[in-house]
């Protein structure tokens, strides 16, 4: 037994042990706790009443749908703005020195709350009213680097001879983009969607700050419930959101299947 242990400790397998312990304490156990809390009531009895409460609670459902809507809108804006940016960055003719890449990634070095507070201050300074528009602006501003980077990565790695080949076969620049560049960069776009959609759907700090607490997102609802010690209901809401995110992840991995996965971030 002792010898076996030594053998294990000296093998490379043992290197994974600290990470395994970390993952169990900070990922697996909390997840299990969420599930347990979601299916029990205050007294610790097994029940579905938390979910019933959610589906009967019109305001919560509205917030849920609204959150998804905001997340989809944010993701869409990020794609529309991020793709051309990534294209420019990956084009060596337009971006000789790679400094532009740094400039685009630079905001990520600043804490998200600091950036959002600064945005609030800026909006106040030029007296733009805070609200839904400001919220979407803030979300896009905060999350667009996560869209640009994976797309930039796939475009960067793409063999330029595909573009030559398409042009050679009679495709004008528009067709080259639609029939070759876009399909080949889809893995990057999918990664970008994951990177943006998931945090936007769960965020609450940005919403609170940029709408002066006027617009509630689903993340806010969860946070409020947990703050008010309604652990079981909060856990149920968290679980619902987790399932939604899990669903989008499945959709994504299915799409990536086989190809040498996209952005390098996922």
């Amino acid at each position: 037994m002792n010898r076996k242990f030594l053998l294990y400790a000296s093998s490379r397998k043992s290197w994974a042990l600290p990470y395994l312990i970390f993952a169990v304490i900070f990922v697996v156990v909390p997840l299990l706790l969420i599930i347990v809390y979601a299916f029990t009531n205050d007294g610790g009895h097994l029940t579905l009443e938390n979910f019933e409460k959610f589906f009967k609670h019109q305001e919560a459902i509205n917030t849920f749908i609204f959150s998804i809507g905001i997340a989809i809108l944010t993701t869409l804006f990020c794609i529309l703005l991020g793709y051309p940016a990534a294209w420019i960055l990956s084009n060596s003719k337009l971006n000789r020195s790679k400094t532009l890449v740094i400039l685009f990634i630079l905001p990520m070095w600043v804490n998200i709350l600091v950036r959002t507070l600064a945005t609030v201050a800026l909006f106040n300074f030029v007296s733009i009213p805070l609200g839904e528009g400001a919220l979407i602006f803030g979300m896009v501003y905060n999350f667009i680097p996560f869209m640009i980077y994976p797309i930039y990565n796939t475009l960067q790695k793409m063999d330029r001879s595909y573009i030559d080949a398409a042009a050679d076969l009679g495709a004008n620049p528009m067709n080259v983009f639609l029939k070759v560049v876009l399909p080949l960069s889809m893995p990057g776009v999918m990664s970008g969607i994951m990177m943006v959609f998931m945090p936007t759907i769960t965020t609450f700090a940005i919403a609170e700050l940029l709408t002066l607490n006027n617009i509630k997102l689903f993340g806010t609802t969860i946070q409020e419930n947990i703050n008010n010690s309604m652990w079981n209901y909060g856990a149920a809401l968290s679980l619902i959101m987790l399932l939604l995110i899990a669903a989008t992840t499945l959709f994504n991995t299915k799409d990536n299947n086989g190809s040498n996965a996209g952005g390098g971030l996922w």
Partner: protein
Amino acid sequence: MQEEKPIIELKNVTKLFGNKIALDNVSLKVKKGEFITVLGPSGCGKTTLLRLIAGFHAASNGEIWMSGKEITQTPPYMRPVNTVFQNYALFPHLNVYDNIAFGLKLKKMTGKEIEKKLKSALRMVGMTDYEYRDVDSLSGGQQQRVAIARAIVNEPQVLLLDEPLAALDLKMRKDMQLELKDMHKTLGITFVYVTHDQEEALTLSDTIVVMSEGKIQQIGSPTDIYNEPQNSFVADFIGESNILNGMMVHDGLVHFCNADFECVDKGFGKNTQVDVVIRPEDLYIFPVSDVAQLVGVVQSTIFKGVHYEMTVLCDGYEILVQDYHQFGVNTEVGLLVKPFDIQIMKKERICNTFKGKLLDTSHVEFLGCTFECFPVSGIEEGAEVKVEVDFSDIILQDNEEDGMLTGEVNFILYKGDHYHLTIRSDWDEDVFVDTNDIWDDGDRVGISIPPPVVRVIKMTD
């Protein structure tokens, strides 16, 4: 008969990448229906030439014409050419069918037409029944065939092929060569083929364009290129050859290896220095007898499958001979070459000539450095002068710092009893050196020129 218009014509085309010259004032005419091969070592500009014709690069200078229309500025998608890429560039997100149909779909053809053309293209490359395969699941040779099908299905006027067989193994390459040649016959369209493989070029082409350093060295049929190379680069690059320094005594008589030879070349003038090219298979080797023009001793003999390759030392000159009969090492043999098999080339230069400036009576500036020279008179200080240095007078140093200037060995030519090197100096000037020492391509060397060998000549005009 009226001369047929060339299908492609390049007029004084120059292409620069930054400061680097990739193509230097190239002019070329391609006849309709011809199989033309652009041949040269890597970095000679052959791929650039092809990409200019395809439209992927814009010419820095000059014009490109196709079927009587200027297309210098036409974007690639509007040119009636299709390309087979070196790495095939098959779209990984499309299957074989969609890859080949890519061009046809863009032309808004109906499904039926596409189907028909696609079937015949696949039949032509021997890939029927592969329509719905993923391109990643195909072998290199199969991908090659799909790439060719994808290009020819569009029925281009010109098919451009960029080293298409470079990635295949020898046997496969030979098979594909024959297939390409058949395809060229069947399709009847013009093929422009780029390769660094001289054997491939000789096998396939109607016309070969030999390129080096961004310049066209010779254009001709495979037999012309092989039998009558115009300069030592072509002679050395195509096949094996003995290249020797010679002297044209008068028309029909040439002197080399310390012997006189009858030849068929004329018009070089009397007592002119020339380069003599003799292919190793054109030399007859036999036991010493009266008919021998050269007598020598066999230095080495190698079995090459079909023939033996022997080096014979004749009066200080090493000569390469190929023959079906083997003569052992140290055997004394006689050599004979027929007048018709001696190819004479005018020497491009008989000594180094530089443009320089006389600084004072004993110092002259050229190649970006100041050199000492024997005192000169009759030329005023500061005047532009011509400087001559013989090939054999330049000294090459292993240690770069020992030289007055530095450079890189760019081209090596064995001349039987010495090496003729081309050194590219760091200021992009060529220095030619004769030496007995062995250097490698790409070696860094220091160059020194001792004062007595520098000849300063007054500019005449």
